[in-house]
C-alpha cells in the first residue's frame, strides 16, 4: 500500500515576473532536506520552473502542488488562463507565443514544454480555451 504523500502547496503570483521561480527554488530546498537525490531534484525543479514561468507569462499565475510519495513525485500546476488552442503545436521545440518583452529576458524560446517533457517520466496536459490549463508531471524515484 502506498503511504500518504508529503504534500506541498504554492500559489504562483502572476503579477511579478521577476519573482517567478520562487516556488521551484523552494521545492528544490525542500526535496534536498528530505533526502531526494540531486539528479531527481534537478529534473523536478527545472520542470516545475518551466511550468511556473509559463503560468506567469500566459495565465496570470495559478497554483502548484507537489506530492512526494516513496516511489514518485507528482507535480500538479493549475491555472485559469486562456488555455492552449493547439497543444500539438505548442509541444514543438521552437514554437512560442511569448511577447517580445518576455523574449528579451531570455524566455520564449519555445523550449518550455519540451523541457518539461524531457525532465519528467509522465506528462499530462488538460487544457480548455478560455477556462485554463492543468499540467500533471510525474518523476519516478
Amino acid at each position, binding site marked *: 500500500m502506498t503511504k500518504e504523500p508529503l504534500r506541498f502547496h504554492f500559489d504562483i503570483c502572476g503579477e511579478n515576473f521577476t519573482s517567478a521561480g*520562487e516556488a521551484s*527554488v523552494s521545492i528544490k530546498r525542500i526535496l534536498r532536506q528530505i533526502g531526494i537525490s540531486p539528479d531527481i531534484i534537478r529534473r523536478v525543479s527545472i520542470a516545475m520552473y518551466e511550468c511556473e514561468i509559463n503560468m506567469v507569462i500566459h495565465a496570470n499565475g495559478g497554483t502548484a502542488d507537489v506530492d512526494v510519495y516513496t516511489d514518485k513525485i507528482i507535480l500538479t500546476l493549475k491555472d485559469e488562463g486562456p488555455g492552449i488552442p493547439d497543444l500539438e503545436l505548442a509541444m514543438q521545440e521552437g514554437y512560442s507565443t511569448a511577447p517580445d518583452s518576455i523574449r528579451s529576458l*531570455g524566455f520564449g524560446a519555445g523550449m518550455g514544454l519540451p523541457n518539461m517533457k524531457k525532465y519528467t517520466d509522465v506528462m499530462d496536459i488538460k487544457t480548455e480555451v478560455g477556462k485554463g490549463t492543468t499540467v500533471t508531471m510525474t518523476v519516478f524515484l
Partner: protein
Amino acid sequence: MTTAILREKLNLEILNEADPNREVTGGYTGDLLSWVMSGAQSGDMWVTIMTNINIIAVASLTDVACVVIADGAEIEDSVIEQAKIRNINLYRSKKTAYQICNEPLFL
C-alpha cells in the same frame, strides 16, 4: 578546478563568491534560459550576457558551479543581492563569451 582557481585563471571580477571551493567540471554558453536548463550540467561554468534576475533562479535550479557574465554587461544590484541570498557564484568578465570559452581551462 575550483571556482576560485577559475576566477584567477580568467581574471574575473567577483560579484558574489558564495563558494570559492565549488568544483567546476565543465562549461555551457547561452542566453536563452530554457536552452540553458536543457543543456547546462551540474558543476558547469555558465557563460552568458543575460543579466536579469531570472538567471539566479536558473543557476540555482541547474546547479551550475558559477555564472560568468560576459562582455562586461551591466547588472543591477538587486540581481547581485539575489545571488547572495541563493548562494550563487557570480562573476563578470570584460571578455566576450567566445574569448572566455577559448581559454584552455581544463588542460
